[in-house]
């Protein structure tokens, strides 16, 4: 029987960086691990490809009509439904089902997890963001720095550095489209207005290379983010998993869905369903690092405790999408050498929330027009004309709200094995009207009636199901709150089960959490490995 120092579950940002931090130990990674399909024909620029003679139906729509799935199935993010991207959410509704009518999110069983389609937004948490965590920004800083050096982050230390922390390891930022370059120029001229409104704007920090690095090419403004997986310039944890496999740093077993664990005298037994054979496999090791994603990690913990009663808290960033228009740009050609990644960020101090809210600003060059044409209020032909001429004059401001603790937001396990997931909807807030006022003063046309609110769980920033606390109950004692973790990531009531993904977040500020998951997992994984070195095997 194989015996490992560490068993890591999953391959998303948490699992990957926990394993990365623990390199040198004998590590087994158990994962379902759907891999990205090859897409050799999608090379270059999306619009130049579409101008060419080649039939792009298989790549953009798919032989199984993957891109049409939102017409007849529960809607998911546009980034997750195209033929070569849909592997990211393949099988989860069958293999790891969620029982919820309102849930419009997704779970990933792919190698690299949902971070295969992330917006690549990199945000350091400040001490204010970490309120409630038994951690400080200073403690996380060296891990943030190490992750930055590993993945490559582009951006600038500009007006947003006060909110995102300074980062001396940044690559130059992505080139702005002319639409957003004009917007940035307007911001610089109107800075006093922003200061009065307690808002700031700056360049997006992204896990995207603007210079070649470690064999990865720089970003080429190909506009294929909605269709092509694994653009080498955009970081995904799958790259690090593959590096560790090649280096022999981990043993990676795909095709395994971990269902439960059991602690023994020697360590821990991890039970997984072999998806090829249907058999239950058991792996044994000294410590277990759970990084299957905040929802699936909660599922494994509840299943291991045979607990079909407890409702664990759940957090996600609710969003409000505010379209805005520069009327003078109507009739301009679409900028085809562009990006569908965030170009700018805004931060808004808001008295109602008592903490800064963050917004990411996007162009509209990424998705197919057919994805939006039926959501406009005119006849189809008129909607097509509007999308054609207005898209080059349009931006999208995606406002993120902090995750809110609420009795209406929870995760529980049903006896059927399904996960009950509920996220309470976030009503409109005054801050949206403040943003609209400022956009208008900048010269952009917009209106509250145009705001779109993605559905429950659509933020895909799941966190807080097994939150980290300063004193969650020591392992030697009977814990009062068994579903909390310590600052070291140790799940209360266990001797060797660590939570390394967003599940252990004590709170969720209005920032993409992926970068902090990476840094925190690196910290936990390295800590576990170092403490094991001080113990007899």
């Amino acid at each position, binding site marked *: 029987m194989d015996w490992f120092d560490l068993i890591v579950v999953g391959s998303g940002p948490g699992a990957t960086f926990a394993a990365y931090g623990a390199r040198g130990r004998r590590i087994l990674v158990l994962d379902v691990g759907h891999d990205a399909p090859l897409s050799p024909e999608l090379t270059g620029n999306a619009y130049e490809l579409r101008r060419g003679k080649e039939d792009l139906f298989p790549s953009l729509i798919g032989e199984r009509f993957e891109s049409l799935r939102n017409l*007849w199935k529960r809607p998911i993010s546009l980034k997750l439904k195209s033929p070569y991207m849909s592997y990211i959410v393949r099988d989860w509704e069958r293999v790891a089902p969620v029982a919820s009518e309102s849930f419009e999110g997704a779970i990933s069983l792919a190698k690299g997890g949902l971070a295969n389609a992330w917006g690549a937004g990199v945000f350091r948490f400040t001490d204010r963001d970490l309120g409630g965590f038994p951690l400080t920004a200073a403690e996380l800083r060296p891990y943030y720095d190490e992750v930055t050096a590993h993945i490559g982050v582009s951006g600038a230390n500009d007006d947003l550095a006060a909110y995102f922390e300074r980062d001396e390891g940044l690559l130059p930022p992505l080139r702005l489209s002319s639409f957003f370059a004009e917007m940035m120029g307007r911001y610089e001229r109107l800075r006093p207005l922003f200061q009065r409104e307690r808002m700031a704007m700056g360049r997006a920090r992204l896990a995207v290379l603007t210079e070649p690095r470690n064999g990865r090419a720089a970003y080429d403004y190909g506009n294929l983010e909605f269709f092509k997986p694994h653009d080498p310039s955009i970081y995904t944890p799958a790259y690090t998993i593959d590096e560790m496999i090649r280096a022999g740093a981990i043993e990676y077993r795909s095709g395994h869905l971990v269902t439960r664990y059991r602690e023994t005298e020697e360590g821990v037994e991890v039970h997984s369903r072999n998806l090829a054979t249907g058999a239950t496999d058991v792996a044994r090791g000294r410590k277990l690092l759970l990084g299957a994603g905040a929802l699936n990690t909660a599922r494994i913990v509840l299943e291991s405790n045979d607990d079909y009663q407890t409702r664990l808290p759940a957090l996600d960033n609710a969003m409000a999408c505010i379209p805005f228009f520069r009327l003078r740009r109507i009739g301009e050609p679409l900028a085809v050498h562009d990006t569908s990644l965030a170009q700018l960020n805004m931060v808004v101090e808001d008295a109602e929330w008592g903490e800064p809210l963050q917004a990411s600003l996007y162009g509209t060059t990424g998705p197919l027009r057919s994805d939006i044409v039926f959501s406009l209020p005119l006849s189809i032909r008129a909607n097509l004309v509007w999308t054609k001429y207005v898209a080059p004059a349009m931006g999208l401001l995606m406002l993120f709200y902090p995750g809110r603790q609420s009795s209406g937001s929870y995760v529980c396990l049903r006896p059927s094995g399904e996960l009950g997931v509920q996220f309470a909807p976030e009503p409109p807030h005054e801050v949206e009207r403040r943003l609209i006022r400022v956009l208008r003063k900048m010269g952009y046309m917009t209106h509250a009636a145009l705001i779109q609110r993605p559905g429950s769980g659509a933020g895909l920033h799941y966190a807080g199901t097994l939150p980290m606390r300063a004193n969650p109950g020591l392992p030697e004692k009977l814990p009062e709150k068994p579903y909390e973790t310590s600052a070291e990531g140790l799940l209360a009531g266990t001797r060797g089960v660590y939570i390394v993904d967003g599940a252990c977040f004590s709170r969720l500020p209005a920032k993409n959490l992926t970068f902090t998951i990476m840094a925190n997992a690196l910290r936990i994984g390295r800590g576990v490995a170092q403490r094991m070195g001080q113990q007899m095997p």
Partner: protein
Amino acid sequence: MRYEAALREMGAAGSPVVERIVARRLDAEAVEFALRRRGIRGDQGGDLARRMQILCYLVEVQPSYLGEFVNQESSRGRAWAELLGATLGSAWKLVKGEYLVRRHGLV
């Protein structure tokens, strides 16, 4: 062919509304718009909208139709003229669609 395959993939059965529109050679765009404005879903109207959306996707990825979806040249005057025309045309489609829905008992 792809259109029919897409309908099969979605398990879309025959729709009485669509069959009536085809048999009577009605203006499908006008009827769809009128039904969409009424918020009618399901077999009565949603199926028509869905079929038109499938067509829209299938057409959009064909190189010869790129110009229908993406503005490739600077044309401010033409853009505003087309937007105005399309908006007025849309109002006409709504009036026509409402008439057709009532005249042919499509709801």
